[in-house]
């Protein structure tokens, strides 16, 4: 036996012998022998409070039913998960939970993928006897990215646990007590008034329709219906490996070709790719980094692609604003290029162009209206930002049978990209893409393409690379609690880096707030981030060009229009600035 081997525990679940490591919960132990126990408030590693009592089971010798999601196994334990007592208890609990849930399921945004609805079905709730304080809607839509309706909230705390633990933004909590308990901000202020960073992680954590993303699809339909408008669209790198989940495909399916076809059939005038803009981001950011490195600029330089992170930095870490790269995010670079270079080339008035972006992100809805992004011609770069989920609803509404669609291609003018851009969607991807270009710029040809140390699922990653002249020390963090941890160390002088990549969402954009919602059952027992990111890295390997600066379209646009990377025109169009923001409003 190895020195640190974990003790194994033997128990019986529904008559089956089970052997699991000490500390395992009954829920997980049951899962290991093919028994699924229903849950509602449980979200692995995030919300493990045993509050909702849906996962109760019988344990021989225990005084009452126990919550299996938090109850650890012990030697000789005898567990029953499917007795009359258990079934009845779960039913009664769910009935009580439903008694003050507003049940307008037919018109609810979550109706086809609501965990409460699925559970009501599974537990065979035929009627709610305790009807019921049917609450009127309590719509709170002050935030740009999401809509709250507490009349559908079941107080599971999955959103607040995510906000406090995963993101450490902590703007929503349970307020008051007993029957008056409700999830809200301090002093019951609206979400739009407080220091929420718009990451949307609470939305993907919510099991019901209490938290939904603001739906901007009507604006897109209106633009598509307007013959006077030239409507262009582009999806973010991470969207192609997640969209399929909303349309019945396995997690981690890359649907890039079908995505391009679907967008064209929806009626967009041009179907471009944000991947192209991601290559510009790398060339600009790489140039900026080399300049800072060689000319004594502010280091560590921190990436600026994630608008949730940017807002967090402006609100919570304003002293680091000089460290932020001045590069716009790929979304904003894309819109900026469309409304300058592309408009001029095609002879279209940029005011007649509607730029739609498809994003894995809810904070992008906030980013598109940032005044700092405005171009010299008076236009904001992007007009409408929709999420992966919103696009899937448009595809369904348009009657496109997604799995029947042939593979298509993006329009070339802004639709050619490299493998470096593809991996933007995963944590560490921007860093690796930047290193590929920076290494070549510093050392010439023959440098490595793969930087494995910055890949992977850990919340914080570090590496040092020996490049001619000096060692470049880099760090990567995803999820704002990890970002805070990393930056605290940097500020205390405990860690020294030259370049830091930060993504607001844990795992990066593939796990963004605008990505397909998966029920807790899937989220707790499947590594979504791993499956989705593998699809991006295999796209990278398949791509012929893997360094952003090798992108022929990019090279042509610099030559024809932008001039030098980091030059005057590039700065005017592709860069922005930031300012500290007030955290509290009184």
């Amino acid at each position, binding site marked *: 036996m190895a020195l640190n081997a974990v003790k194994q525990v033997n128990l019986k679940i529904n008559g089956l012998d089970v052997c699991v490591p000490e500390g395992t919960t009954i829920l997980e132990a049951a899962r290991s022998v093919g028994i699924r126990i229903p849950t509602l408030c449980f979200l692995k590693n995030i919300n493990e409070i045993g509050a909702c009592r849906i996962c109760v089971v019988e344990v021989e010798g225990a005084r009452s039913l126990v919550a299996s999601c938090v109850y650890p196994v012990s030697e000789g334990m005898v567990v029953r998960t499917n007795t009359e007592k258990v079934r009845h208890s779960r039913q009664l609990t769910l009935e009580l939970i439903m008694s003050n849930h507003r049940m307008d399921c037919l018109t609810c945004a979550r109706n086809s993928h609501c965990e409460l609805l699925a559970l009501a079905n599974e537990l065979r709730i035929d009627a709610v006897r305790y009807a019921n304080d049917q609450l009127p809607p309590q719509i709170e839509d002050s935030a740009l990215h999401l809509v709250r309706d507490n009349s559908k909230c079941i107080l599971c705390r999955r959103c607040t646990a995510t906000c406090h633990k995963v993101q450490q933004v902590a703007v929503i909590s349970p307020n008051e007590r007993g029957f008056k308990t409700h999830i809200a901000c301090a002093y019951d202020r609206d979400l739009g008034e407080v220091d929420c960073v718009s990451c949307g992680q609470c939305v993907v954590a919510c099991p019901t329709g209490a938290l939904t993303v603001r739906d901007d699809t009507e604006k897109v339909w209106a633009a598509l219906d307007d013959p006077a408008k030239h409507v262009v669209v582009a999806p973010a790198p991470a969207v192609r490996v997640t969209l399929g989940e909303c349309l019945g495909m396995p997690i981690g399916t890359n649907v890039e070709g079908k995505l391009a076809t679907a967008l064209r059939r929806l009626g967009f005038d041009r179907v471009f790719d944000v991947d192209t803009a991601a290559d510009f981001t790398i060339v600009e950011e790489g140039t900026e980094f080399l300049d800072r490195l060689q000319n004594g600029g502010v280091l560590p330089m921190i990436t600026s692609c994630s608008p949730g992170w940017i807002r967090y930095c402006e609100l919570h870490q304003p002293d680091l604003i000089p460290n932020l790269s001045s590069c716009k995010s790929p979304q904003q670079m894309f819109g900026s290029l469309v409304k300058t270079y592309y408009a001029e080339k095609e002879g279209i008035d940029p005011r007649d162009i509607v730029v739609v972006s498809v994003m894995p992100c809810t904070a992008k809805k906030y980013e598109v209206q940032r005044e700092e992004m405005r171009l010299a011609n008076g236009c904001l770069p992007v007009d409408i930002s929709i999420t992966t989920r919103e696009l899937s609803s448009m595809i369904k509404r348009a009657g496109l049978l997604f799995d029947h669609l042939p593979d298509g291609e993006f329009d070339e003018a802004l639709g050619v990209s490299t493998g470096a851009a593809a991996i933007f969607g995963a944590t560490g991807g921007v860093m690796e893409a930047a290193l590929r270009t920076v290494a070549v710029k510093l050392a010439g040809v023959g440098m490595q393409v793969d930087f494995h140390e910055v890949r992977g699922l850990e919340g914080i990653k570090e590496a040092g690379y020996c490049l001619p002249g000096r060692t470049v020390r880099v760090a990567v963090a995803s999820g704002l609690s990890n970002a805070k941890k990393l930056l605290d160390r940097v500020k205390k002088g405990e860690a020294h880096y030259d370049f830091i990549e930060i993504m607001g969402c844990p795992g990066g954009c593939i796990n963004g707030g605008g990505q397909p919602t998966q029920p807790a059952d899937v989220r707790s027992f499947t590594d979504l981030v791993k499956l989705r990111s593998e699809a991006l890295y295999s796209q990278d390997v398949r791509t012929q060009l893997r360094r952003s600066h090798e992108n022929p379209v990019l090279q042509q646009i610099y030559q024809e229009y932008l001039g030098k990377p980091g030059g005057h025109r590039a700065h005017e169009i592709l860069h922005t600035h930031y300012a500290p923001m007030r955290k*509290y409003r*009184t």
Partner: protein
Amino acid sequence: MPNCKTVVPYRGTQEQEDRLRRFLQDHKGQPGAVMPVLQEIQSIFGYLPEEALIIAAEEMDISLSELYSVGSFYAQFSFNPKGVHQVSVCLGTACYVKGAAEVLEAAEKKLGICNGSITLDGRFSLDATRCIGACGLAPVMMVDSDVYGRLTPDQVGPILDKYM
């Protein structure tokens, strides 16, 4: 709603804020400091004003939302200052069965505020209390230290008029 948002402007003084800051200095980084901090704020300001909670949130690196969440859980914390005249209606068992709920409703209507809050001009605050030991007089209302017993809802208005 015992904890509805106050309508009275913040009147905290520099001296009060300094006192709070000194207290926070001593408790910085201490685990489980939320309760003592909230208690201190209430003892300094008489209630939990947003401005004071923000000071605490910043100094202690605790989110404002968490402080408010804990504060609003406990009935003994108030988010409203007390008025010049403090009106309280007993909701103890004896008073309750004698119709105290209607008395409270009449007081809420007369003052135009909900239980637990304060009038815009800061003159009256209204609270429901537990048994005040005057069960023989049920239902009972107190205005400052004056006790009014055997009340009917229609008597509430004229009584409060005397303090207007």
